[in-house]
């Protein structure tokens, strides 16, 4: 039972339509490290693609009341 069935909103998939594939399971550290390095530029570009442009306004807009 997916979470949508828990809260009853029909048959919509749980991921966003453009959501990426689920996390890959862990593999060897060395292989990952290499892929990691090669992917840094790509990663930074992806980050810039999702961040809101006005960093200051975005951060300032996040105000909660205190919790516990």
């Amino acid at each position: 039972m997916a979470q949508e069935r828990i809260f009853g909103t029909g048959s919509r998939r749980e991921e966003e339509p453009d959501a990426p594939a689920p996390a890959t399971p862990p593999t060897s550290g060395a292989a990952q490290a290499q892929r990691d390095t090669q992917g840094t530029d790509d990663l930074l570009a992806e980050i810039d693609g999702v961040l809101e442009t006005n960093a200051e306004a975005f951060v300032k807009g996040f105000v909660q009341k205190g919790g516990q």
Partner: protein
Amino acid sequence: MEQRIYGIETEFGLTHSAPQGRGLGADETARRLFAPVLAWGRASNVFLPNGGRLYLDVGSHPEYATAEAATLRDVVAQDVAGERIVDGLREQLQETFDAEGVGGTVHLFKNNVDSAGNSFGSHENYMIARRTEFSRLVQHLLPFLVTRQVLVGAGRVHPTGPPAFGAFTPGDGAASYSFSQRADHIWEGSSSATTRSRPMINTRDEPHADAEHYRRLHVITGDSSMSQTTTALKIGTTDVLLRMIEAGQILPDRTLADPASALRQVSHDLTGTAVLELANGGRRSALDLQHEYLEAVTRFVQRHGAHHEHMDWLLELWERGLRAVEQQDFTLVDRELDWAIKKKLLDSYAAAHGMHYSHPRMVQLDLAYHDTSPSHGLFHMLERRGAVDSFITPEDAQHAREHAPATRASIRGRFVAATHDAGVNSTVDWVHLKLNGEHRQRMVMCKDPFATTQPDAEAMIEEVLAGRA
């Protein structure tokens, strides 16, 4: 204790960002977020078929409390499942806003601070033996909690350096990075209050179990963890230390002279070498104290055996985490520990853009690391790219959204699912299951948190399933 119940309560941050207009306030956003929960359970405080609890807490924080777990794997799975469930609500609200033309983006954060300096928590619960003297337990646990942030802190950017606090003198206002998010917001060692003056250990004694044998240790000093391996290390190290204390192991007195100041000192010192004053006049660094605990635990495990399958993994990561700080080689743990994973990301971004930690973008990245969205959250972006390690499989996490761990929670979960599907009015808390029938009420108490079945509860669930309730 050889077997223990664990649970994690997470208060999430929530914001509606509308760059082109005015975002909705936190209260309104939280109210809208919980509309599907209200429709499902006729309340904004519900127990779920996986045994967990979802509610709106103090200050309009969505909060998720995991079901009782008896293994590290289960507590991590339930914690991840909780994040996915609340993020599912975030996603539903986004779709509603899009459909209504409200616009903007709803963000949910699994972090511990907002931009105005408000803090909200991650609370760990450990069931402990009633026979263990509580003051002795707290005495040995506090120095551990103060210093464990060098391993399990979530990391935080301070664009104008560490804030001032009492005897703790901040730097020159230069931007900095700390191990912990929560350290700057804890005020005392142990107390029964939580919001007025924040302690590290809450002494409120609500066992939610047989009070003759158990009590509940409520640790509220920790940071919320994005990384599954950080969660496992946080719970696992605390558990094994408790096991040693409960076994009556003699430990040296490392009571800190000023725990609240020490917490800040440790958090803002990435070298782990800042000298902390002990109450008995001694002096130790965070690394000294952590090494003492690690060595004592390692000897204890050698003598008494491992009480679960992850002990070798746990001790290895504990040692490696301390070595990373000691040698200032953070690459040793930048796939496993939140503060190091985040710092690596920030440093890469800063280097590529010629930025300093004082840049507003760095604070935004810090926040975005904790964004629970699979597509926008930076931790999840790294996870997708295989740049961080996991502790459970995606299947484990999916399973935990629907199923309770093998504890008392499985009775509760089945009762909740059955009554909901049958449309039967019921009331549930951590211990009680109650049918609110028209003609008669029935209530069952589940006092043993390890029991996965209980005859009177099973009979009641059967009744509901058979349509006789």
